[in-house]
């Protein structure tokens, strides 16, 4: 970590700053996507970048997600370092052949002759009333596509440092940005710095149980921790930060310490990444340290509804984490 000057900026600004600084220092880096120029991207992430870098490197595309991902793949094979913005994570459905069948596999399938250093960024998650086709969290699909790395930072600091690492990584990296995080603020160094992949962070230490989370659910878990602390329940919040590679050691150590674990994610429960985490815990050394069953708190197995009340009820809220933690803290063999 840099010990340079830091200041408070938003998550969105942190993402932009990582791109801007990497583009300044590496001419092979460029950004490609829909409406990322004058419009600044659907969420404004690339605002102002066109002015600095021009249309060659802030490369706007037609509405053609498959071609965008393919163009990134081909350019990456040529040694460029494309970053693509897929406007909503839901539209990955249209780019999955290029991401999962091409970019992810090309290196192995070609016997190591080449590599595919691309970053695919996309905003995920609900909370904005955008309904079933604009609110998904599809990280579980990407985690299950060997060849892709998956990053899901929860703070501005992590976002900048991990995006820098993503851009410098020599593989396809999926970088998940939660819409509700964009406006959250935090201290971020002005200078370039990078955070290694595969290092979870204990965002809050605790004694009674471990909450494993990533992306926006870390924020909610930390809020829940405040509430629970008042009741003298101390939860340890482990922020995975990168889902693939995964820092098993940190999460196992935490579970061994607390003996209780609650896994939280926004994506639907069934088939979500929480299953993988539970399996790792239940299949490893932590198993013997468990004092209670492994609990998962996740989105309902439904498409995200439009109505605000329904939308809220679909994904874990702070109070849901509090309630689940309360019960789990008392559960035990």
């Amino acid at each position: 970590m840099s010990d340079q000057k830091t200041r408070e900026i938003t998550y969105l600004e942190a993402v932009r700053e990582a791109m801007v600084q990497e583009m300044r220092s590496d001419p092979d880096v460029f950004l490609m996507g829909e409406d990322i120029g004058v419009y600044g991207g659907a969420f404004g992430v690339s605002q102002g970048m066109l002015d600095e870098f021009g249309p060659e490197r802030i490369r706007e595309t037609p509405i053609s997600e498959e071609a965008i991902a393919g163009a990134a793949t081909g350019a990456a094979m040529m040694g460029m370092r494309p970053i693509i913005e897929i406007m909503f994570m839901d539209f990955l459905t249209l780019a999955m052949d290029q991401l999962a069948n091409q970019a992810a596999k090309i290196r192995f399938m070609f016997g190591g002759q080449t590599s595919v250093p691309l970053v695919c960024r996309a905003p995920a998650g609900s909370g904005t009333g955008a309904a079933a086709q604009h609110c998904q969290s599809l990280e579980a699909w990407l985690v299950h596509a060997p060849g892709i790395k998956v990053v899901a930072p929860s703070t501005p600091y992590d976002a900048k440092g991990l995006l820098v690492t993503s851009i410098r990584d020599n593989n396809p990296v999926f970088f998940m940005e939660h819409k509700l995080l964009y406006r959250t603020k935090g201290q971020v160094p002005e200078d370039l710095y990078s955070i290694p992949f595969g290092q979870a962070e204990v965002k809050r230490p605790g004694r009674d149980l471990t909450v494993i989370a990533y992306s926006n659910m870390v924020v909610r878990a930390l809020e829940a921790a405040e509430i629970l602390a008042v009741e003298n329940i101390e939860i340890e919040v482990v922020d995975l930060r990168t889902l693939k590679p995964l820092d098993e050691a940190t999460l196992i150590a935490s579970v061994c310490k607390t003996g209780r674990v609650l896994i939280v994610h926004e994506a639907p429960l069934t088939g979500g990444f929480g299953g993988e985490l539970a399996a790792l815990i239940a299949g490893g050394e932590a198993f013997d340290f468990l004092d209670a069953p492994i609990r998962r708190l996740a989105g309902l197995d439904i498409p995200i509804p439009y109505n605000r009340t329904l939308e809220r009820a679909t994904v874990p809220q702070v109070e849901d984490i509090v309630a689940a933690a309360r019960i789990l803290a008392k559960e035990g063999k």
Partner: protein
Amino acid sequence: MENASIAVPPSGGGAFLRTVDSASLSHQLPHEKLAWMLRKMCETRYFEEKAEELYTRGLVHGTMHLSIGMEASPIGSIGALEPDDLIIHHHRGHGHTIAKGADIAIMMGEFLGKEPGYCRGRGGSMHIADMQGGNFGATGIVGGGIPIAVGIGLALHMRRSSQVLLSFFGDGTTNEGAFHEALNLASIWKLPIVFICDNNKYGMSMDVHQVMNIEYISERAASYGIPGVSIDGNDVLTVYQVIGEAIARARAGEGPMLVENLTYRWRGHSKSDRNLYRTQEEIAEWMERCPIKRFKQLLVTEHIMDEVEVEDIDLQAKETIDQSAEEAVLMPEPSPENMEDEVYAP
């Protein structure tokens, strides 16, 4: 048949542009048809102005896409359908839904996420469907509805139905692979579909000529061996006439066609739009070509209606919307109980 002439672009510039003498057409159409068109256009306009107002008042949680300035395309197109014909459309679909006969209070209820809304508050502005009314709804995935249209058309074809389907989408959408695959399929199967591109000059912020190297989107019809034509999409009677011909063609079993309705959206793409990609002059210029104003003028100039009748229709439309909004605001919210039971059909 006569319509086939649409297919062949006249040589020379503006190859794909087709014009219609709307003044004389206005005298051939029943008065009530013309009144219906005016009413539906006004309802659409007021619906969206009301939507904006409700949004500004903080009553809407979510996004919306307004088609203010584009009303002639959905109303003229759907006006040319028989009642039991079908439509499928897209995120900018308020006009299509109103034209297809939606109950506006129920539609407004959906916009506000209320339980009595068309989708019980699950869909919202971007996903209003009215299956009973033959409206297969809106998809939020650009291009996602076009392959579905093929399936609807296929079912009509396999059942030897005489119904026709209109499939609406935007200019930017025609760069999606789905557009390509779907039009090809509809062509080789000769399905009873009219593909209608509401070309409002922009995707979100990308000028249509920045994202494709051709003058008219209707030129793309040639790739599928189907007729393609571009028309003044701000003239409701031109739209009515040309789409009507395409519908007749489709109903006669001659297969699909691509019609490009040239129009313009006045508002930003959605609420986050700061309009940096276009000039105020351009917007002003197109506001001059307001499809409602033009239609009103035509009706008066051609002595189809007097100004009193025109403004009466306008007023009624406004009242319908105001009333519907009042109703909708009072509608009950949905309950989050047992949502997991709704996902799968029994």
